[in-house]
Structures are given as C-alpha cells and as structure tokens.
C-alpha cells in the first residue's frame, strides 16, 4: 500500500487514495446508515419485480392462493401459454396423445399433461418482435440524429440557436394522450396507421428532443481544444469528430441510448391508438390478455417478465458507460 501510494503520489501529485482504516466513527456510522437506506430502497424496488417473476412460474392454484405463497414449485404453464395458442383436450384425446409414441417437443407434452394441446404460436411473439424492431430502429435513429444535431448546436454558431432548442424541447411538453388523436387522423390519411414505419417515425421524433438536449450537454463538456488539436494535427473536421469527439462522448451516447430505448420500449398510448394488428407492440398486448375469459395471472406475469428482459440486458451491457454518463459534469478533463 505504502509503496504504491508514494509512487502514485510522486507521479500524479494529486488524488492520494483515502485510507479506509482511519475513518472516524461518525463517518463510519454515516456510511452504515447510507448502506442501510440503499438496501431498504433496493428491497422496496425489487419486491414487486420478484413477485412478478415468481407469479410467472406459479400454477393457477398458487397464483390465487391465500395467504400468498412465496416458495412454490416452478410451473411453466404461464410462460408456455404466453408464447402459444392452445386448445382444450377432452380426457380421451389427452390419454391418446400421452400414450402415443409420437415425437413431440417437451413443452407440448408439458401442456398435454395439463389438458391442453398447442395449436400454434401466440400473437404475442409477433408483437414482441414488433416491439424489438420499432424500439430498436427508432432508438438508433433518435440517438444517431440527436448526436449529430447536438454536436452542431454545441460547436457551431447556429442562427436562432436558443429558439430552435426551445422548439425542439417543446415537442415534449404535451402529454402523449393529447396529441394522439390528431396524429391518429393524420396517420390514417397518409396510411401510416398500423405500420412499423409509422411508430418508428413517431418514437424517433419524440426521442429526438430528448437526445438532442442530453447529447448537447455531453458535447459541451468536451473541450473544443480536443478537436482543434486534431485539426492542426492534420485531420478534417469529420475525422476529428469521429476519432476524438465520439470516443469521448461514448458514455453520453450510452446513457441517451438507454433512456430512448426505455421510452420507445415502454410506450403504450400511441401504440394502443395507432396500431391494431400488424404493428402492435407488446405493452398494449399484455393488457389485452386481461380480458380473455378468466384472468391468466401467470401468463400476464410471464409477459411482463419477458418484456423486461431486453431493457435489462441493454442497461446491463452499457452500465459502465451509464454510470460515467449519469454523473456527467462531475468529471473534469
């Protein structure tokens, strides 16, 4: 410890490591309280998610059992029901199918044992696919365009810059519900109703204001001298942007991507109004499951769980950049 410290101290002259073994009692108590608060918060935030996840693997009996059961035998009925269409079997047919030596996938057998036969893939699979395409493409577009626009706003003398930025932000000022009806009418006119491209356009426009403002903040934090150094070092403006500015804006881009993706992925009102079948995304579909003859809680929970996965994965992959990105402004250099 001491050797490392003295070496680093000599070179850097700053940022000596804090000695953890010499904290005062008050600091340690304060740290303890902090940890406690964070743990409590984490519990409060995670319990509903845990409950949802466990519900997804509960049998019908377990779902409605009172008092609620925490420890259960995992049941895949909900998950399989989510992804498939099924038909009820009478007892004779069920016996016959179980007795047959016909090769069948494990999930079909699993359902036959529970009195149902799989007849096909459920519409939810297609809607999940729609969600992936629409959220993915619109996020890429919003972040890409937003990054370029924000760079221009940050670096060039754009005429009417302040007004333009305000105008861009103002697209966010009305709640979605207010603008859905005019957009619905417009979309019907131009045949964008219930199309992928329609929702992609809408989500891109909606996210663009956000990504322009967020990315402008990140670009403002990057000293101009970096690009200027690259310019005198023999690079064009575009090369300087690509080789020097973009790598330094990565954390910002990651943060913006996650926020845009979460919006586009979770969006409900527009999708409900502007799509019917072909381009419908997952969020309104989960809700419509409520209505189909008896509430299939396990299926709904499974739908929500599956729905959570992509955002969690992306956030997890980008988490390192995200942490740096969210604390932007706090880091100099």
């Amino acid at each position: 410890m001491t050797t490392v410290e003295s070496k680093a101290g000599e070179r850097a002259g700053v940022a000596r490591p804090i000695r953890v073994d010499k904290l005062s009692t008050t600091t340690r108590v304060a740290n303890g309280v902090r940890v406690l608060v964070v743990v409590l918060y984490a519990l409060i935030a995670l319990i509903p998610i845990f409950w949802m996840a466990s519900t997804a693997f509960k049998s019908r009996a377990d779902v409605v059992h009172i008092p609620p059961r925490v420890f259960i035998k995992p049941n895949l009925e909900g998950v399989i029901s989510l992804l498939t269409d099924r038909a009820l079997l009478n007892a004779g047919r069920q016996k016959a199918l179980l007795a047959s030596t016909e090769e069948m996938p494990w999930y079909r057998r699993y359902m036959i044992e529970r009195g149902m036969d799989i007849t096909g893939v459920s519409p939810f699979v297609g809607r999940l696919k729609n969600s992936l395409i629409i959220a993915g493409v619109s996020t890429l577009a919003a972040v890409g365009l937003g990054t370029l626009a924000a760079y221009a706003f940050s670096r060039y003398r754009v005429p009417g810059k302040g007004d333009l930025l305000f105008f861009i932000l103002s697209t966010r000022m009305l709640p979605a519900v207010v603008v859905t009806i005019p957009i619905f009418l417009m979309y019907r006119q131009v045949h964008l109703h219930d199309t992928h491209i329609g929702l992609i356009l809408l989500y891109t426009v909606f996210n663009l204001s956000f990504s322009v403002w967020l990315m402008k903040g990140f670009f403002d934090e990057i000293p101009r001298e970096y690009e200027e150094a690259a310019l005198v070092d023999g690079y064009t403006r575009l090369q300087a942007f690509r080789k020097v500015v973009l790598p330094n804006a990565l954390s910002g881009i990651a943060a913006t991507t996650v926020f845009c993706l979460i919006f586009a992925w979770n969006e409900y009102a527009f999708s409900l109004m502007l799509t019917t079948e072909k381009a419908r995304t997952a969020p309104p579909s989960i809700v419509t499951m409520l209505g189909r003859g008896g509430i299939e809680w396990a299926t709904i929970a499974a739908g929500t769980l599956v729905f959570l996965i992509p955002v969690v994965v992306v956030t997890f992959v980008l988490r390192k950049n995200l942490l740096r990105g969210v604390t932007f402004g706090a880091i100099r250099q």
Partner: protein
Amino acid sequence: MATIELRQVEKRFGSLHAVKPMDLTIHDGEFVVLLGPSGCGKTTTLRMIAGLETVTAGQILLNGRDVTWEHPSQRDIAFVFQFFALYPHMTVRQNIAFPLQAQHESKARVEAGVKEVARFLQIEPLLRLRPRALSLGDQQRVALARALVRRPAAFLMDEPLGALDADMRERMRAEIKRLHLELQATSVYVTHDQIEAMAMGDRVVVMSDALVQQAGTPAQVYHNPVNLFVARFIGSPGMNLLHGRCLGTIIDVAGLGSLPVPPAWQETLGRQIGNEGDVILGFRPEAARLTEGGTLTAAVYASDMQGGSAMLHLSYGDETIVHVRAGREVRHPIGSQVRFDLQPDMIRFFDPRSETALSTVDEAPASPEVSE
C-alpha cells in the same frame, strides 16, 4: 522551417475588434513571443495563424504561400494548447502517434517517430499510460512531443506553462528554450507573463487593446519602450513614470526635486517640448543611484529584500511611489529620507499627451517596428 507573415490581419467578432489590423513577420527559426494582458488579442492572433480562427481581413503567408483560407490541417503547423488537450481516450503513445497517422505514415515509421521524440523529451516510460495518470509537467512534455513528432514548419504555443505551478514552470521554460535551440524551429509563443516573455523570446511583440504596441528584442522593449503602456507593462515593477516639467535644461518633478536634462536629450526636448512644458520622465529602478549628493529626495515607504538587492518603494509629493533598486548592505528604515541620482543614459522621456516616447533619433519611434 518557415517564415510567417501577417499582412494587415484583423479579426472582428461582430462589432468587437479582437485584433486590429496588424503586420508582423516572423523569420525562419525565430522565437517570437506575443505578450499582453488578457483580452488583448494575442491568443486570437495565434489562432488565426493556426487556422482555428478565420481572419476578417488581411493575409497570412507561410513561406510566401498564402494560407489565409487554408484548413488548419493543411498548414503544417503544430499547436500546443494551454491545457494541453491530450486526447483522454488514447494512451500517451497513441496521442503522440496521432499526427503521424494523419499523414498515413507506415506503422514502422510511426513507431520510429514516436520513439525518437519520446527519447528526446525523456518520456519513454510514460508511453503506455493515459494522459490522466500523468503529472502536469509530464502532460506538458507529451503535448510538446505530439507537436514535435511531425516536424512541423512552425510551433504555436498558447500559454503552455499557464497550467503549471511556479516550480514546474521554471523547469519547462528551460526545456522549451532548449528545444528551440536544438531544433531552431520557427516558434510563436503567447503569454501574459512578461518575465517569461523576456526570458524566452528572440523578439517580443507587446499587444494591448487589440493593437501591437511594440515589437522588438527583449532589451528594446525593456530599455526603449515606445509608449507608456509598454513602459508600465514590461518589468516588475514597471518603469517609473513621473510627471515633470521641463524648464530649459532642468527637469523639475514636484515634491521630488530636479535634475539636469542629459546632454543627449537637450536638443530633442527643446524641439519637442519647447523651452518650457510638461513631460513624463521615465527610468527603471536600476537607473537610480543612492548617494548623499543626489538631487532627488523621497521618503522610504516600504522596502522589499530581494536577496541580491533590495527594492525600495519611495514616496514623494502626493503619495506617488517610485521604485528604486538599492544595495542589500544598507538598511533603510521606513520613513527615512533617501537621496538619489539617475544614470543619465538610462533616462527616457514621454509625451504626456500622446503617451508615446520621445526619441533622440530623428525618425519617430512611435510607429511600432513590426518587421525589423
């Protein structure tokens, strides 16, 4: 290497004149320092030479080639920024290699170039590190290495020592000077620190209010300032400037005493002021000699021991302060009266109305000598 020539170059930001039309020729291998208080246009001038700022009017020539509207990347000029602007996402090695890669050099040649310049600046052990991990002095060396590696036609440095502490500044000043002596590269250096400017420059260009006030060797701007601004700005403390009255062959400074006009000045003063008139008397602290028989008298206001000598702050008349250098042997208690004389050849005179220097030479010295 290169000659840089500015012809009537000016810069306006809207209605604000950042640089008023200026002419300046920087010769091949010369080390020119642009010196002035902040906001005087020195950095803007440097950035115009680099191409980072467009010019409003005028021409910039590099080796006779008009580069006024050329992109910075085509000027073959290196720029060292005040805060170094090392790319934080690259290692030191990548930082130094970056300018070479712009020229599409082969990998081997890039590697060789980086190695050579790293050895030259003694930063070889740092090549693997990120700039963030370096001390400011080392960051400065890396910034210099990045500028050097391409062997550019000229070096532009914008207050490169401004971010360093006093100790490191002294060392890097010597290093930059040594670099210049070894490479003999045309260099333009911007600073607001007149001591730095005097120490480093072959020539010092003093700027203020967007205008070049004077361009000359350090000795010229120190001993023969062309106007009151330069006289005050150069030197620490600056030149003593006393309001006096010329009475034939006598200069009278109210409250301080009078002294004879040096013979070399009699004709000039007679011509410019007439028989009687106001004049500003200028002299450097070291021009004063403390003697019992001195004709000027003032009270000691404060005294700074500066090691080799002492700087006396004398007050006379209406609390006007004069700075006088004294030997370190004699102590001068505060409040005591001191008598002194001025070395005749170190006396200068200024016109109080135009604030420009009077000259014993016939041609007017007021127009800044810009291109030697």
